[in-house]
Every structure is written in C-alpha cells, then in structure tokens.
C-alpha cells in the first residue's frame, strides 16, 4: 500500500524525473517501434538507439551522487542502482551496433527498440525496491529477448534456440513468481527491504499458522520461498543446474545475440538476486536469515562445471556459453561473501565490478566473432579461427585481449575484477562460515587455471596455427570497431581501473578508486 506522502504531485513528478533515464529509454523504444514501420534503415535507428542510450548514460551520471541514499521506497536510488544505471547504457551503446549490423533494414528498428527496452529493464531491476518493480524489470529484459532471438536468426537453429530460451525462461519465471508470492505472504508487503530484513515478527507467524496446530514453520517457509526465487533467477544467471539452455541457445542464435544473452539477462538476474537477498545495503540480515551456503554451493558448482564443460567444446559460441556460465559462478562467489559491514567492504562491490568488466570483455569477444562470421561460411568451430592472426590482425588481437581479460591475465580489467573477487573472499571473512569463504577463494584460483586451458587454446589457434580451409569474408566494420573499443577498454581499465567507477572521497579523506567496492561500506 503506497504511503500517503508518496502520493502527492511533486513527489510523483520528482520520482518520474529520477527514473528519467529508464522512462526515456522505454519511450524511445516505443517511438522506435512506431518509427520503424514508417522509415526503414539500419543506420538511422542504430544511431537513434545509441544517442538515446548516450543521453540515458549522461542523465544517470548527473544523477549519481551522494544525494542518493538507500530508501525503503518503490524505487531504490542507492549506490548499486547508480552504478548499474551507468554501466548498462554504456554497454548498450556497445551492444547496439553489433546487433544492428546483423539484421536487415526491415528488422533494424525492432531490434533497436527491443535492446532499449532490455537496457531499461536491467536498470529498473537495479532500482527495484519492490517485488513488483523487480518482476517488471526482469520481464522487461526477458520479453524483448524472446523477440530479439527470433529477429536475429530465424532458420531452424535460430527457432530452436528461441523455443528453448522462451520455454525455459517462462518456466523459471513461474518458479520466481511462486517464491515471490510466498515472500509477500510471509511479510504482508511487496517492499523488498522488509522482505529481507525484520518483517518477520512473531505475530505474523501466529496469524499464519492455524491456532490449534502449528502447521507452518516460518523460517523454513521463508527458506523455501527464497530457494524458489533463487531458482527462478538462477536461469538468468546461468547457475548450474539452471544453465542447460545456455550452450544450446548461444549456439543456435547469431553471435551478436549470443553476446547480448551473455550479459544483459545475466546482469538482471544477478542484480535481482542481490536485491532480493538484501545484500545491497550494509544493514539488515543478509540472505534473509539463511547463511550464504546456498549461494556458496551454487557458485562452486557453477564455476567448476562451467569450466570443465567448456574444455570439451568444439563450437565457439558453445564454448563461450560455458565460459559465461563459469564467469557467472565467479560473480555468485562474490555474492556469497555477503554484504558490506563496518569492518570490510563485502562482496557486492567486487561483484558489480566483475559484472561490468565481464560485460566489456564478453561483448568484445562476441563482437569480433560476429565480425568474422560470414553468412556463406559461418565461424562455428574453434578451428575456424585458426590462422586468424595473419588474416585479420586487429580482430584477432582484440579477441585475444578480451579472452585474456576473461582469463584474468594482469593488465586487463579481468585481472582487477578477479583479484577483487578473490580478495573479497580471502580478506573479508564473514562472521559465520569464514573457512567456507576461504575455500571459495582457492576454488576460484583453481577454476581460473582450468579456464586458461580453453582461452589460451583459442589464442593458440588464432596465432600459432595455419588456417585449415578457405576463409570467409569479414562482416561490417562497425562490429570490428565495437570489438576494438571493448579490447581497448579492457586494457585501459586494467591499468586505470578507477575510470570504471567514479572516484569518491569517503571517511578520512581517503580516495577510493574502486567505487562499487567502497560505496557499499556500511552507512551508520
């Protein structure tokens, strides 16, 4: 039930202004859908989308600042939100050219509109202070994704990919909703802050249970509800065992679309997870009273299986899909560390950093693959990249840098991201289960070593092998440009990672470069 002070006019308009970037993106998406039926043209709509996202990024950048404290409102403008709202439009600007270059003029406007919608969805998820908004944000990512999957490629394989993604996505969305309904039932409201903090008074318990016989065990019910929610989100994060669709869908769809899938839904899922588990704020009880064991288990299984299965892959996009599964595992590992407390920075900041870094590297890799993909002679197998180093040096170096980044070699942003996650697990032990978290750090190291196997194998093929057969033509230059930008960012942010965030001066006048990591330090 909305409170009365929220329902006054100025508050309402102010709220609309604050959510301006997202509302603007959605409006622009509508206009693009409409305009696309009148004027066709890849260039035009691509430009419209990129400019719109640029404005959104600028608007978010202006908005972000110390004025945004965590609230218990429908919209939650806190540090997580301001961080994500800056990253998403920027990655969207990199994503759009890749996608638009893959479709023809007729579908360009539609795919731009869908991308804008999905970007707005991720942003909305990050701002969600309420289950309703969270759900809408997630669906604003999912529904355009279904359409885009079909638009990007609609031969038999594309159709199969679309079918699998669609069916499993709505299935997992039903799981999420089931959990959400119980969260609502247990707390009596859809506000998230109460869901995860102290909304569980004894009174509710007594009301809910039959007075004559205790049929409900409240914390257990809460655990069930949270598990359903996590399972529902797990599909988007591609956490094992909810990852099955990923390799098939990546393989079946176009490279650019695979790049989209590798980041946007995953980001939405992870951010939703940290919202639901109450990790975004340094107060309240994390994990809804459960300890982080479930996330710990998911993280370990996800990164290990992702890497182990990636070794086997011959298909390029399939391999990157499993690599994406593993990367999701690292991010889950970071979440398992828990929220910031007064003593340590927690795992949320490193997770957000990792998310941004992975976005850049993954988009770069898929951009280059999209660029190399020739419809006549598609780049499907990893051996299709053999001898690329001499044929397309810029593309192959960009791809190699992005792969190095995902592997976590020093001087790439991936190294910083992995180091932060690793040190979050090692340095800031939680009050409970600290040894578990420490083990998690070791497992991350081992997994990174396994990852080296297939990432370096790919680089090895590109530079140290002769091409196996005739080579296709390269695609539009704009995809190469996007990939190159990503590669440059990967290196640049590896040297000066503070550019990824914004520098803030906090207690004691100390300058903290890694924004998300610090801003999550608990507020009194």
């Amino acid at each position, binding site marked *: *039930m909305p409170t009365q002070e929220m329902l006054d006019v100025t508050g309402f308009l102010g709220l609309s202004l604050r959510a301006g970037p997202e509302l603007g993106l959605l409006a622009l998406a509508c206009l693009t859908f409409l305009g696309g039926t009148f004027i066709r043209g890849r260039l035009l709509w691509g430009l419209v989308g990129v400019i719109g996202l640029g404005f959104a990024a600028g608007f978010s950048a202006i908005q972000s600042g110390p004025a945004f404290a965590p609230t218990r409102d429908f919209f939650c403008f806190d540090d997580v939100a301001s961080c994500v709202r800056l990253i998403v439009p920027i990655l969207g600007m990199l994503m759009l050219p890749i996608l638009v270059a893959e479709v023809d003029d007729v579908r360009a406007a539609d795919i731009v509109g869908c991308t804008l919608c999905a970007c707005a969805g991720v942003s909305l998820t990050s701002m969600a202070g309420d*289950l*309703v908004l969270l*759900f*809408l944000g997630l*669906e604003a990512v999912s*529904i355009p994704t*279904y*359409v885009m999957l*079909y638009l990007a490629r*609609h031969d*038999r*394989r594309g*159709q*199969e*990919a*679309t*079918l*699998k993604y*669609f*069916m499993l996505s*709505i*299935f997992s969305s*039903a799981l999420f*909703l*089931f959990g*959400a*309904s*119980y969260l*609502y*039932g247990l707390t*009596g*409201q*859809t506000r998230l802050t109460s869901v995860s903090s102290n909304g569980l008074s004894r009174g509710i318990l007594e*009301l*809910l249970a*039959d007075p004559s016989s205790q*049929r409900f065990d409240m914390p257990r019910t809460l655990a069930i509800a949270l598990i359903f929610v996590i399972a529902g989100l797990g599909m988007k994060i591609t956490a094992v065992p909810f990852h099955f669709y990923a*390799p*098939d*869908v990546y*393989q*079946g769809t176009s490279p650019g679309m695979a790049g989209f899938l590798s980041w946007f839904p995953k980001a939405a899922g992870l951010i939703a997870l940290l919202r639901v588990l109450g990790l975004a704020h340094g107060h309240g009880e994390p994990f809804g009273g459960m300890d982080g064991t479930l996330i710990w288990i998911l993280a370990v299984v996800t990164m290990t299986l992702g890497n182990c299965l990636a070794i*086997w892959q*011959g*298909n390029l996009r399939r391999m990157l899909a499993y690599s994406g599964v593993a990367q999701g595992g690292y991010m889950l590992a970071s979440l398992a560390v828990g929220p910031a407390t007064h003593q340590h920075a927690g795992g949320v900041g490193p997770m957000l950093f990792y998310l941004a870094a992975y976005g850049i590297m993954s988009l770069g890799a898929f951009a280059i693959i999209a660029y190399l993909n020739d419809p006549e002679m598609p780049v499907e197998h990893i051996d299709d990249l053999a001898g690329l180093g001499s044929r397309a040096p810029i593309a192959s170096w960009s791809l190699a840098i992005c792969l190095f980044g995902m592997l976590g070699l020093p001087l790439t942003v991936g190294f910083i991201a992995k180091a932060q996650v690793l040190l979050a697990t090692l340095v800031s032990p939680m009050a409970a289960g600290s040894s578990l978290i420490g083990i998690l750090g070791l497992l991350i190291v081992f997994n990174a070593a396994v990852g080296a196997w297939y990432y370096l194998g790919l680089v090895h093929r590109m530079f140290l092998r002769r091409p196996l057969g005739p080579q296709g033509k390269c695609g539009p230059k704009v995809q190469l440009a996007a990939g190159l930008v990503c590669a440059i960012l990967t290196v640049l942010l590896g040297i000066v990672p503070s550019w990824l965030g914004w520098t803030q001066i906090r207690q004691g006048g100390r300058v903290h470069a890694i924004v998300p990591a610090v801003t999550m330090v608990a507020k009194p």
Partner: protein
Amino acid sequence: MNSPDLPHYLACAAVLFVLGLVGFLARRNLILMFLSVELMVQGVALNFVAFARFRGNLDGQSFVLFMLTVAACEAALALALILALYRTQASLDVSLWQNLREDDLDATEDDEPLPGMMPEAPLPSLPVAGIAPARPEESNRV
C-alpha cells in the same frame, strides 16, 4: 469452518502449480507445455490473491494485475512463436527440437510416437441405401 481458510487456498494454488509443473515436464505438445506454465502462473496468482485477502492489503492484488499482463504478453509471443515453429516442422512435438546439443551425443529417440504422427486410414465410403454393407473379415470383436 464453512469458509475456506488461507491454507486451503495455498494448497489449491500449490496443486495448480505442481500440476502445471508436471504438465510442462510431461506434455510434448508445445501449446500444452505453454498452457502448463500458464497454469503454474495462475497458481501463483491464486497465492497472491489469497495472501492479499489474508493480509488485508492490495499489494498482492496489484501484483496479480501485472502478472496477468505479462502472462498475456508471453501468451501472445508464445502463440506467434509456436505458429512459426509449426510452419517449419509441421508438428508441435517438442522433441523434434533437439538438434542443438553436445556434438557427439546421439539424438534421443521417441519411445512412442505422438498420436497423429501415424497416417490414418481413409474413411470408407457408404454403400447406396438398401444394400447391406459388405462385412468382410474385419469384424473383430473387442
């Protein structure tokens, strides 16, 4: 005790949800699979409404509104998608869509084909009135 209690609603919703889940796993017709998911969502909707009544606020009701809208969007997409798939494959069998898998695994064979996969025998034409129909050896008594 005449009026149903909250647990009754929850049980009913859970039954709906599980029926939908089993349907999704067991039915092989794409449309029925989709409808099974809808069943799951309706179960959740029942949960929300029941909780809303129990809690005495409208949060759950409004959640249901949004849920139904989203479900409608998904239904529209599902119909469009299934239509397109049917045009390609001339069948709604979900197990026909298994070409994307690990590359050295064999395709999973059907244990029993779906009804409708077998061609039906053509209908006999009726004899002219007044002539007893020939009753050949096919008079198999059940």
